[in-house]
């Protein structure tokens, strides 16, 4: 099967209170399939009362968000970006972000799975952005998020996931290693990406074994949340608004470059490249697929749960409860992986699998020094 097909994946991160608005907008526009996943974005809390101002380290308030994902034809990209922006008023700081990525779809999907529309829209959002995807042990996203927020780098999004890797070769002993992971995503200007990555690696000690995994992914266009703290207004406009206004004035985020704020990395890191294979299937069936993939060298992956919604439930070809696995493999291994998946019937009725990939220009993990596959 060589049904490789280019598509666009739109990711929208929307404040929970606006979820219903977005869902109804999606349904109104006949977007049949969309994914939903809960997550949170941390915001710096207001300064404490009176003497508590002493401590400069703000406390963090977690705002619940819903992460939407829609696959669409390249032609519909602008339409969807506009749709999300209008539905959730994403130009107001604090409401959320939306961005698009290019994906290669490797499996056949129902015709309405990939949304398409003739209508042309003006391109919105900024280009030249890069996303950073980071997998951390549960609980360690918080301090990193705080530092990211305090430096004003970006507004991170955190969701929960489970990791497989070393654990699964241990047998029952695996229960001693926590599989719970946190997935932290930020979107920054491309020129900042390397520094942002370096920053997270330093703070999260990702250069130590078993601490996590990080990679950057290219983004087409994006409109980003700028709300960094709950701090009340001291000026006519809040900092978030000023930033947001300047963004729009310049039409890009170049002016926000702040590479020099980051500590220069003391040593050269061994980055590697590859493709991110995203497998999406019925909940509780990804495990068997991963077991088969281990034979071709895919040792670790991150699994998270999401919900595949369908606006007309009678026609839904998929079970709503879904599992997503992100696995990073060297590009040359991709055909092998796909053929293994086909071999075990991953795309069949039983597991309702979907697979797509995206290019990863730069990734880092402790193990990358030893082996290329990861």
């Amino acid at each position: 099967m060589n049904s490789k097909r280019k598509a666009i994946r739109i990711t929208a991160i929307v404040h929970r209170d606006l979820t219903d608005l977005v869902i109804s907008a999606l349904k109104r526009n006949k977007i049949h399939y969309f994914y939903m996943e809960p997550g949170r974005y941390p915001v710096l809390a207001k300064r404490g009362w009176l003497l508590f101002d002493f401590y400069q380290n703000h406390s963090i308030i977690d705002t619940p968000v819903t992460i939407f994902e829609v696959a669409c034809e390249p032609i519909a990209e602008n339409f969807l970006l506009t749709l999300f922006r209008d539905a959730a008023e994403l130009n107001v700081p604090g409401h959320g972000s939306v961005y698009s990525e290019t994906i290669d779809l490797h499996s056949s999907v129902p015709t309405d799975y990939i949304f398409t529309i003739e209508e042309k829209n003006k391109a919105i959002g900024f280009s030249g952005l890069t996303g950073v995807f980071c997998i951390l042990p549960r609980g360690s996203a918080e301090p990193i998020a705080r530092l990211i927020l305090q430096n004003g780098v970006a507004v991170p999004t955190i969701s929960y996931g489970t990791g497989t890797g070393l654990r699964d070769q241990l047998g029952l002993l695996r229960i001693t290693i926590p599989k719970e992971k946190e997935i932290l995503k930020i979107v920054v200007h491309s020129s900042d990406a390397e520094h942002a990555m370096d920053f997270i690696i330093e703070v999260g000690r990702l250069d130590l074994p078993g601490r996590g995994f990080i990679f950057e992914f290219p983004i087409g266009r994006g409109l980003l949340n700028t709300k960094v703290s709950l701090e009340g207004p001291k000026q006519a406009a809040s900092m978030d608004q000023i930033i947001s206004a300047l963004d729009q004035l310049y039409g890009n985020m170049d002016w926000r470059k702040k590479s020099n704020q980051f500590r220069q990395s003391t040593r050269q890191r061994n980055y590697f490249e590859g493709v991110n294979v995203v497998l999406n299937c019925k909940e509780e069936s990804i495990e068997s697929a991963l077991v088969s993939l281990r034979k071709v060298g895919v040792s670790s992956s991150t699994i998270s749960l999401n919900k595949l919604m369908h606006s007309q439930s009678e026609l839904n070809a998929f079970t709503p409860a879904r599992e997503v696995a992100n696995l990073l493999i060297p590009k040359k291994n991709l055909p092998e992986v796909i053929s293994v998946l086909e071999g075990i019937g991953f795309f069949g009725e039983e597991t309702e699998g979907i697979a797509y990939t995206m290019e990863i220009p730069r990734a880092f993990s402790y193990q990358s020094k030893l082996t290329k596959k990861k």
Partner: protein
Amino acid sequence: MARNEKEESIHIGLRETITLILPYFQKKLWGQIKAVIWIVLYLALFQLFVLRIPIKEAGLITFGISAVVLGLTFFLEGLLLGLMPLGEALGLRLPQKLGLFSIIVFSVLMGVGATLAEPAISILKACGSKVAPWDAPLLYFLLNEGSHFLYLSIAIGVGVSVVFGMLRFLFGFSLMRILVPTIFILLGVSIYAYFDENLKFISGLAWDSGAVTTGPVTVPLVVALGIGISKVAEKNEQSSAYGVVTLASLFPILSVFLVGMYFSEKLPKPMPEEIFFKQGITSEQAKLLLGDSHGVPLRKKTSLTLTSNPKEFYQKAKDNIVDALQMAMRAILPISIFLLLFLTFIIREKIPYPEEVFLGIGFSVIGLTIFNFGIIFGLNKLGDQVGGKLPSTFRSIELVDSTKFIPNFNPKSVLKAVNEEGKEEKFFYLKERKSYTGIPYHEENWNQKSKIYEYVPIHGPIFGKEDNLLGYLVVLVFAFFLGYSATLAEPALSALGNAVEETTVGTFRKSLLIQSVAIGVGLGTLLGMLKILLEIPLVWIIVPVYLFLLILNTFSKSEFIDIAWDSAGVTTGPITVPLIIAMGLGIGNQMGTVDGFGVLAAASAFPILSVLLMGMIVEKSRKLSLRDSELKEK
């Protein structure tokens, strides 16, 4: 159960295995120590520094408390590994494979099964022996001869509520639609019962049994099932997996009332003791009330714990261990076997990670055994000691358990003294260590034959005179902190907290939930204590509180409503219940109340309040993150 462990870990040497297991075990154990330490420290320090009575059998209690900690560690880990994944897997598969009818049948079976397994129900029965049949015949009947009716009604109540909960997930309607009518019916029934001579006494029991049913086995299972079902339910977009637990603690209240009403007709009305023994009841009523075996009605029971010799003690300890094991097996095994069979034969699905599930079930059994044992030997003993002596803050009480026997007592040493009113009183001096203390002399304690004088020390009132206000206040403050610190250790709450944190992706922290629930339980216990001290009818507490809750609900978000109401059912579990009841009975005995029930009902109503209020505070900051503050100010 863990027999696979060695075979599978061949590649890993013993040393590596230990380096893996030790920190893991340490971490889990430390978590439990942190949870239990507060209640233990609190009880111990209160007894030592406020009541100023040394702790009896301190070594045994320490041992028991370590058992509680160890047991909790195993049990919770077992729940996470075994029962919860099973429940969730079932929840995921059920709607896909079976029709609505089968789901309903399954839900009823599971609710009933899980409840009958719940260990805390037996505590209710233990209180039954303290009720006199003439004071409250219906209450006596339900707790003694008719206790199986009580159990069954509670279990069916839970079964029905699981059905409603599952239907709610499948069709995605809001919890309030079931909650509001249920509460109104319950309040109505309670008010009706308040005016009925016989039913009046069971309303405390009914509300308490609602609180007791949802314990460490039911809650995680039901929550996990809910999480599973709500994931696959199409119509449930704002997926919330909660709300079943609260139904499971409300419906049994109703079913207990219904059973009570049924038997109320057949049983005699409350009457004075003399009439009861003189042809006050018909033989038919007597048969129903006291059973066939009881030819002779019961006498008043004397509840005196006697010190026993070591041999008896070991026998007792052995019996206790066997009991604890049996209880644990009864709680865990039937329900897990039922779930496993259902999953493999009816749904025909593989169990996810079978060896992990089996290990988990094994852990749960081991954990619950050690835990039960520890509760009997550690916490209950400590709780009873403190609870029994608590009234000494406002009244003088006899310390029966520290009775001293003075051999070769010479009555000639008795002296006379004059009290404030000029009356003569007898006393003698006792030399203990190096100091002399005056001890009042009572003729009846002096055994002329054995020449032993039995001296029961009298303690209190610690704060001023008899029945002083400060003493009562100390009791109330004690009640608050008892409820608060016991809740921190409650295993079901911890399991719910984990589930909440997981499903809300960390926006609703476990610690936040536990803290706010604990404050609520504290307040509830305080009010329950007030109920006993002032003899307020339960209705007067329940009705306004629940009405207020319903009003508060309209201002809250459904996310918080579901979690808040669920946390109410969860709060009262194997740690809180015995401690609160011990305290309730201790005070109740001093005050001469008929039934000590109702404290738990109050203790599980207030967490709803505190969680809802906390939700409002959290919500406010979330709103801030959404809105532009400037826009609002314009």
